[in-house]
């Protein structure tokens, strides 16, 4: 029994390690095509994100300083670590903290270039972390109060999806998901759209292979975030998993829609709105959990 659970854990981690970049790349390609269709354009080929990364890898090797690529590499490594832990049924709280550490490496990499553009991007990234972190921690608390465990394997194995008990926290989480996915109106630190005001924010000074690693990290990261959404929606059966995947993709579609329909907000609006939502949704939802639990 012990070996079989260990096996399941290892398989979960390996599946993330190998499949996440493939799915993340396809997701990015689909995202760009849907975005183009929403703007009445044809859009790039589906595999365009893959072509971009291959091109970046073939570029001349250059870096503003010797440590930048090491920091970016650590960013990738810690995202992979967080994802493997998450998909092997590990501790959700630990996943959150590892991911914050990964983001810190990205911020330090941007600061290490000493370029004003990269520093503005890095400062904005810090603001983004400050905006979403309270909500994420409240979500972790909510999971614990409902299921009595922080382990993702335990959270999804109930008879009802957790979202039944945490509807407000789920809505709040979808709100900050826009920040986490760096989508407009919250794409302050780095935008995926062409030619922005502070041109590429946190990645301004990164080029060639370093930028390629950032892109691959985003593929991993996006799959991990969608996994978080699915954690709310899945329950302990095969149907539960399938329903969760379908609903998660619909939520991603909603994010693309939001991305294309809202102009970027100032950081003040991002910070205050996400804190208020976290406070109100979190407080009401956490306080009413005992009553909601009685309903089911």
């Amino acid at each position, binding site marked *: 029994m012990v070996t079989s659970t260990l096996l399941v854990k290892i398989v979960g981690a390996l599946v993330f390690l190998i499949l996440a970049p493939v799915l993340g790349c396809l997701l990015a390609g689909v995202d*760009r095509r849907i975005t183009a269709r929403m703007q009445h354009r044809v859009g790039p080929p589906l595999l*365009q994100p893959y*072509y971009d990364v*291959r091109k970046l890898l073939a570029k001349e090797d250059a870096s503003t300083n010797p440590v930048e690529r090491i920091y970016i590499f650590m960013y990738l490594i810690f995202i992979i670590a967080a994802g493997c832990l998450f998909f092997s049924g590990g501790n959700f709280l630990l996943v959150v903290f590892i991911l914050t550490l990964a983001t810190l490496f990205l911020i330090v990499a941007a600061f290490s270039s000493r370029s004003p553009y990269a520093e503005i991007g890095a400062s904005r990234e810090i603001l983004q972390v400050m905006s979403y972190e309270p909500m994420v921690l409240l979500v972790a608390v909510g999971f614990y109060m409902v299921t009595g465990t922080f382990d993702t394997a335990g959270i999804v194995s109930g008879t009802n999806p957790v979202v039944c008990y945490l509807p407000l926290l789920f809505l709040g989480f979808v709100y900050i998901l826009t920040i986490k996915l760096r989508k407009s109106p919250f794409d302050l630190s780095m935008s995926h759209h062409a*030619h922005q005001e502070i041109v*590429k924010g946190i990645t301004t000074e990164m080029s060639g292979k370093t930028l390629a690693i950032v892109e691959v990290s985003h593929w991993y990261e996006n799959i991990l975030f969608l996994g978080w959404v699915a954690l709310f929606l899945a329950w302990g059966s095969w149907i539960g998993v399938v329903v969760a995947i379908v609903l998660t993709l619909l939520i991603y579609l909603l994010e693309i829609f939001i991305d294309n329909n809202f102009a970027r907000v100032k950081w003040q609006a991002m910070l205050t709105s996400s804190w208020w939502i976290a406070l109100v949704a979190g407080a009401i939802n956490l306080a009413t959990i005992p009553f909601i639990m009685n309903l089911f």
Partner: protein
Amino acid sequence: MSYTSKSPWIIHYDASSCNGCDIEVLACLTPLYDVERFGIINTGNPKHADVFLVTGSVNEQNVSVIRQIYDQMLEPKVVIACGVCATTGNIFRECYNTLGGVDLAIPVDVYAPGCAVRPEAIIDAVVKGLAVLEKKRADLDANRGKITASTEE
């Protein structure tokens, strides 16, 4: 064809254009021409870009800026002069402050004539530039092999 020519990212610089050519460059990004079909993205960042589009003639004030942008771009890179101003200096050629075409400041790979240059001509020039980009990448790879071989000896 390698991946280099499947994802040419562009930086556009207005040297001293009358804005006629600039508007045509931006027109390429609109739904009508939609250059993102070819993976082309307007990055606005020399460190991310592969293709340097210059509109307008070079003058004493901006020649250093053009060289700076060019130097910040990583190999392989191509330069495309968009419009007659960028290719020769056009009617501003004789002005006291104008140097002339962009090729007086940096090496130009493709010239796209027209006043203003048409979006079709720009797209055509970028496609021509891709062949140059491909060749430069092959040279870069060959040199890379040479360098590692010599260090191994």
